């Protein structure tokens, strides 16, 4: 542990200030709370918002899991974990169920989270109206007036031009019937997991200096039209080549040997756990 730095890197006043922003965010679901985002030892846009949230809420007894694109061993996840550990000495795990704080980029774990777990999502662009209106002063006014024409027009435009209303990841959602929120670039597949969840989700955008939250049991409705309902990514008929799971988010991989397209679980910890259990089950059967 690096004694040169305070527990969790920041000075206490900074942590307190970030926690205040978090509390405000929880109190007003989906509302982007501006905060004095600090400069971090990792790059802006590399998860500094999520990292600041994690460092502000983490205690010595917490158990941390960090994933990037569904993977605990992804280079950036390892890097973030290393920094948190170097300044807090907390235990880290890959098993989703064993973690108290899960910091993630672009995914929500497959295993449903519990009420005693906090999910921290890294956010590159917190403003769902940014592609429609570049000015921050104006988008703040639009949120204040709940004027979400721009978000609806964006979807309508896609339908007219492509016959497909779905965006890629980061599909805008209406939170608690009031604020339209960017759920961070999680796939549409994960967006539905935010709705009425057991756990608290905190969103940190470091470069854009915003924190927002979806508290447990909050309504999170992806924007859609009655005749063009929200649609998640289609993995119908596909399953993981390693653990056999279906109904999960899959990575598409080209088998270099055969040139065939194969699929496997994107959530590597979930996949590993399933395979361990299957192996243990086989052994039991064998006895």
């Amino acid at each position: 542990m690096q004694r040169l730095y305070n527990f969790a890197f920041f000075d206490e006043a900074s942590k307190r200030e970030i926690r205040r922003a978090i509390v405000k965010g929880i109190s007003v679901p989906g509302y982007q709370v501006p905060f004095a985002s600090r400069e971090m030892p990792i790059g802006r846009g590399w998860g500094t918002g999520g990292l600041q949230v994690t460092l502000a809420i983490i205690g010595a007894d917490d158990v941390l899991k960090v994933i990037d694109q569904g993977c605990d061993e992804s280079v950036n996840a390892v890097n973030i974990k290393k920094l948190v550990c170097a300044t807090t000495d907390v235990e880290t795990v890959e098993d989703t169920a064993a973690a108290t704080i899960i910091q993630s980029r672009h995914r929500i774990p497959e295993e449903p989270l519990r009420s005693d777990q906090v999910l921290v999502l890294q956010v590159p662009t917190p403003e769902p109206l940014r592609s429609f209106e570049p000015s921050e002063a104006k988008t703040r006014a639009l949120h204040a007036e709940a004027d979400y024409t721009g978000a609806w027009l964006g979807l309508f435009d896609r339908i007219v031009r492509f016959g497909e209303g779905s965006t890629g990841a980061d599909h805008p959602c209406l939170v608690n019937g009031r604020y339209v929120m960017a759920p961070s670039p999680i796939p549409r597949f994960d967006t539905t997991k935010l709705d009425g969840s057991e756990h608290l989700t905190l969103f940190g955008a470091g470069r854009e200096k915003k924190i927002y939250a979806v508290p447990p049991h909050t309504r999170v409705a992806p924007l859609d039209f009655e005749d063009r309902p929200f649609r998640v990514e289609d993995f119908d008929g596909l399953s993981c080549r390693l653990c056999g799971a279906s109904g999960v988010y899959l990575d598409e991989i080209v088998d270099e040997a055969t040139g065939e397209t194969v699929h496997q679980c994107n959530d590597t910890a979930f996949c590993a756990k399933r395979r361990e259990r299957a192996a243990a089950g086989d052994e039991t059967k064998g006895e």
Partner: protein
Amino acid sequence: MGYVAVRGGGRAIEESLRLFELERASSGASVALDRVQACFPDAIDQVMGESSLYAPRLAALAFKQARGSVEEAVFLLRAFRSTLERTSETCVVDMEDMQVKRRISAAFKDVPGGQVLGATRDYSHRLIDFSLADETDGDVRDAAARLRKHFAEAPDDARFDGHLPKVLDYLRDQGLIPSCENDDTPPADVTMASLEFPCVRSARLQTLARGMTQAVEAFGYAAIRGYGPAHPTVGELRSGTVELCVAADASDDADPLDAFYLGDMRVCEVESVFEVESDAADASGAGLSFDIGYGLVMGDTETKAVAMSVLDHCLELGDPRYPTQDEEFVLYHVDGVEAQGFISHLKLPHYVTFQSKLDTVRTARERQAHAASV
């Protein structure tokens, strides 16, 4: 080999860092911090300025660790700054009290106190000096001794005590610059609260002062070239050291003479003059007057200070037709650490999001193909 799909990211990072360290160490040469500070003062100034942290030795260390990359050194120093508790604020500095090393005015030939060219490379020929290639420490010391002797022999009337009146006071006395009350509102600190738009001027000035030097210069250049027409006259550029003090106690009536002296800091201040149409309601009733653009930067980064004064004026005008007068456009994008971070994040894996895009594109294409076949 994918950098996510394959497990073992932790080991990959360790090995990558070792490889990086090997590249550094392969040179077989190290440089003492004293030498970095002595030989690269302009780089140190730039690093400290963009980091909003006056710490020459730390800046030199960051510069060494960053292998001479200013962008990276700023990144290191800014992250370090985040861990520091703010204990006190310095007293207000009056720039008229600057111990001036150099002061020029492009507006008046004979300014009160005179033009002091000081040390500048402005009028040098940018020819590579091949004699520096084999220069030794002894050569440098000899040169210093020779030049000191030269200046010691200078006639007395070529000396000045370093105190000069401000050039623009002359224009103020003539009523050509609208007079205004001193604004003693405590300044904003953009490192303690996020920017809000429209911005207060102090937040703007601070953002520009700590902005990426080349970005401030590029935007400033765009403004005087045509994207936000503003061609200033440099009323005064003064460069030198100012004294920084902390009041003995926090009360307003603390005696300034009791303040603790912390030290000197090298700064460069620019006041640019712009011709503007004055308000008809102006007491003088005259149609034209002058406005001031203000630039103040740490160290000796003069071009940045001039560019900052241009942008300050542009942002005061705030005509949305010109990007250089658009607060959000300028202030959000001059920050080096943010620009570097967000651009380089594109190197991170994005394949969950790309898978999602693939799904959308495939579905849309199927839909269109189906429509075409019907």
